[in-house]
């Protein structure tokens, strides 16, 4: 448990540093292509610092806003509050803030925040409607485990960065294609431009892919671990096992999820990835559900 927390904090720092390096490289190339020179690096440095700070302090708010999660009131969702309060007693964690995503099609849930004192759990209305009490308890215990071992910090930072890298690469590509030409005409070095253009293009394609691969690699092991911790917390692995079964069989599509937030959810909300025949392929953020269920059921025996 303590090793997990330490590892998550370390990973978060490495992530921020690697991310800043990639961004500065991007800034350099952008500066060369657009003719800003070293201003590109300065700009990239400022942007990456601002983003790391935003990701740390405001990441949870952004993720919740992007997912269109609204604060859940105790009066309207007494059972949700009851279940989380029970698990707080079992785990000794502080009470997280609870949010609702108004989606009646896709049962799903995620946790976000920077540490157990600043944590939130969001659940869809479909989850509340379709799961029974013990299944809900299993899902919420899984989310609380993510909070307890600081998975939320790393996952939230990743979400913010993947989102930003994708956004910037997109902008960058457009700029080089449509806007870059005019500025470049005032620049006299024409031979190097072709090479930098190709490099820029390659980077623009590679950067989001690179971010995606980090995102995938880290979150699979965490899911198994959170499942195991949830079973330990509730002493009833069957609750979560049956919840995973129900959620994964459900055909509903969660509209508010996207590439930058999909790894946060208890079960990957992107069906095309989930349904891919190849089990545990490179592009899935979650281990195959059948395998998770099997492990849980073995624990219960």
């Amino acid at each position: 448990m303590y090793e997990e927390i330490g590892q998550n904090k370390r990973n978060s720092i490495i992530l921020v540093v690697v991310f800043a390096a990639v961004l500065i490289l991007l800034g350099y190339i952008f500066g060369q292509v657009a003719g800003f020179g070293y201003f590109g690096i300065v700009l990239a440095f400022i942007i990456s610092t601002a983003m790391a700070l935003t990701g740390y302090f405001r990441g949870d708010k952004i993720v919740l806003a992007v997912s269109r999660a609204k604060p859940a009131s105790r009066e309207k969702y007494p059972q949700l509050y009851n279940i989380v309060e029970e698990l707080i007693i079992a785990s000794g964690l502080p009470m997280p803030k609870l949010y609702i995503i108004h989606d009646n099609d896709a049962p799903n849930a995620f946790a976000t925040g920077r540490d157990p004192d600043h944590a939130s759990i969001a659940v869809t209305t479909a989850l509340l409607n379709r799961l029974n009490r013990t299944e809900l308890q299993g899902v919420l215990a899984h989310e609380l485990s993510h909070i307890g071992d600081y998975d939320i910090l790393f996952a939230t930072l990743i979400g913010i960065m993947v989102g930003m890298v994708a956004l910037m690469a997109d902008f960058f590509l457009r700029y080089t294609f449509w806007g870059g030409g005019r500025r470049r005409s005032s620049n006299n070095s024409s031979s190097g431009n072709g090479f930098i253009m190709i490099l820029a293009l390659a980077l623009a394609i590679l950067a989001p892919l690179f971010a995606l691969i980090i995102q995938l690699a880290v979150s699979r092991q965490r899911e198994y671990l959170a499942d195991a911790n949830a079973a330990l917390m509730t002493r009833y692995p069957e609750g979560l096992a049956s919840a995973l079964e129900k959620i994964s069989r459900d055909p509903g599509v969660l509209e508010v999820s996207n590439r930058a937030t999909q790894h946060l959810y208890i079960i990957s909300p992107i069906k095309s990835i989930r349904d891919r025949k190849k089990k545990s392929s490179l592009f899935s953020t979650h281990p195959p559900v059948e395998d998770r269920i099997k492990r849980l059921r073995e624990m219960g025996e």
Partner: protein
Amino acid sequence: MLWILVVIIAVGLIWLISAYNGLIRLRQRVKNGWSQIDVQLKRRYDLIPNLVETCKGYMQHEREVLENVTRARTQAIEVSGGAAEQAKAENFLSQTLRSLFAVAENYPQLKANENMLKLQEELTTTENRVSFARQHYNDQVMKFNTKTEVFPTNLIAGAFGFTKKDFFQTEVPEEREPIKVNF
């Protein structure tokens, strides 16, 4: 030579203090765990009169079941003694509640009663809270007891009068299951 001696004594003292404080901390957690159980048990005592009142209107022929619940509640409140005594009384109360819900199954109108539905959720969560608080307490007791028994902290535990704590035990195996109330 003197230096070495001073260092050894200093290290020994530091170890003694930290081990003693460690024991105090663990004992404090055990206490906290116990008061958590108390809070949840109190919550349960407060709910029961309401439950009995709601059931009374529908279950005229089941006086005995209702009286059992009330009696078990009174006994649990009045019990004095250690964890073992308290656990026994609480387990008895859980049993009577379970049979009340089993009987309530036969009363469709009662099952549909809105007040009853709310009470059912409240009781389910309270039962869960009690058992999670118990689980948490037992985890803390286990840590504390292990610490008082293993060498070398057992020397300090013995010298300063740290004694082993009772577990909050459930005697009947089926009690480990959460009560299932399916309306």
